[in-house]
């Protein structure tokens, strides 16, 4: 889209200043500000989790299969969905809306795969007996320290809150992308770019959730299996 066409779409009256100070439209700026505030939400949750973890005996219960295999495949899905999204935005910038729609549908596919795998992974843990405020009995006996300190029951609370909020963001993102894909010929290029910003942000958050929640909670010696 040319500068002139965009100038028509984002009239100077939007800002009353006659210029776009950041050279992005107000909707894109809005999405950036939303991303900043959402980053702070996730930072607060992850820092709260780290606080609890540092002040308690913390169980490290995740076996290689299913937990780490599942979460690694989920990471692969999210990273690939970001790639397809960026291809979609790139196609849209060339004016190829049909290709953009296909790439966005691909992104939604990977996002849905992520959510389904994550729900299966949740189901594993719930059927093992993990609850927001209590641990499965065999976790408690395995991770109680030699001087009798019990592992924190808040493991489930932090796990379900952080991964649950992230899963909610992915689900919302799939719906958002669905709307964009359905209206791809009506929305302009910048709207597609904005949906991409949101999607990449969801991917970005997972880049912190995955190591802090999963990698740091690996049951390295296989204590639970013994």
């Amino acid at each position, binding site marked *: *889209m*040319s*500068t002139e066409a965009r100038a028509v779409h984002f009239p100077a009256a939007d800002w009353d200043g006659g210029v776009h*100070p*950041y*050279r*992005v439209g107000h909707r894109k*700026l809005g999405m*950036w*500000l939303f991303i*900043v505030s959402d*980053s*702070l939400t996730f*930072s*607060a949750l992850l*820092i709260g989790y*780290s*606080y*609890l973890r*540092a*002040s*308690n005996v913390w169980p490290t219960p995740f076996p290689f299969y299913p937990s*780490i295999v599942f979460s*690694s495949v989920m*990471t*692969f899905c999210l*990273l*690939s969905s*970001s*790639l397809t999204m*960026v*291809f979609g*935005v*790139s196609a*849209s*910038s060339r004016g190829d809306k049909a290709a953009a729609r296909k790439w966005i549908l691909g992104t939604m596919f990977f996002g849905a795969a992520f959510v389904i795998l994550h729900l299966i992974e949740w189901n594993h843990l719930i059927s093992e007996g993990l609850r927001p405020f209590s641990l499965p009995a065999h976790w*408690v*006996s395995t991770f*109680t320290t*030699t*001087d*009798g*300190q*019990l592992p924190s029951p808040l493991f489930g609370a932090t796990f379900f809150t952080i991964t649950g909020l992230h899963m909610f963001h992915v689900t919302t993102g799939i719906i958002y992308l669905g709307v964009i894909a359905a209206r791809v010929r009506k929305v302009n*290029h910048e709207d597609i*770019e904005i949906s*991409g*910003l949101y999607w*990449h942000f969801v*991917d*970005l958050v997972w*880049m*912190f959730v*995955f*190591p*802090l929640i999963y*990698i*740091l909670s*690996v049951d*390295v010696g296989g204590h639970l299996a013994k």
Partner: protein
Amino acid sequence: MSAHAEEHFAGSNKLFTSIWVWLLVLTLIEIFLAYKPMPIHFMLTILLGLSIIKAALIVAYFMHMKFERLSLILTIVPMLVVCICLMFVVFPDSFRASGLRYKFKETPAVAPAPEEH
């Protein structure tokens, strides 16, 4: 001013694919590290370092920030970093809280009964 050039979504699909490969490689390194026995603060530092690199790659290339105006970057990034750092102000309290924890000396599963001898 080259306003026309900025309308184009900069970066080729080849560049984006190479960024994706880098992100996958860094993820594999993280999974490999999970099974390397090392002190938790080493592990945490390395994992967070890798995560910040991955986040920076995503923000710079996928979210296209590398190609945005400097004024936008300066508006968004420093305040976010400062706010997140400020959240760590209360963190040292977790070490104090760890010392205050009730010691469950009579856990049935582990501790022996004190009246035994």
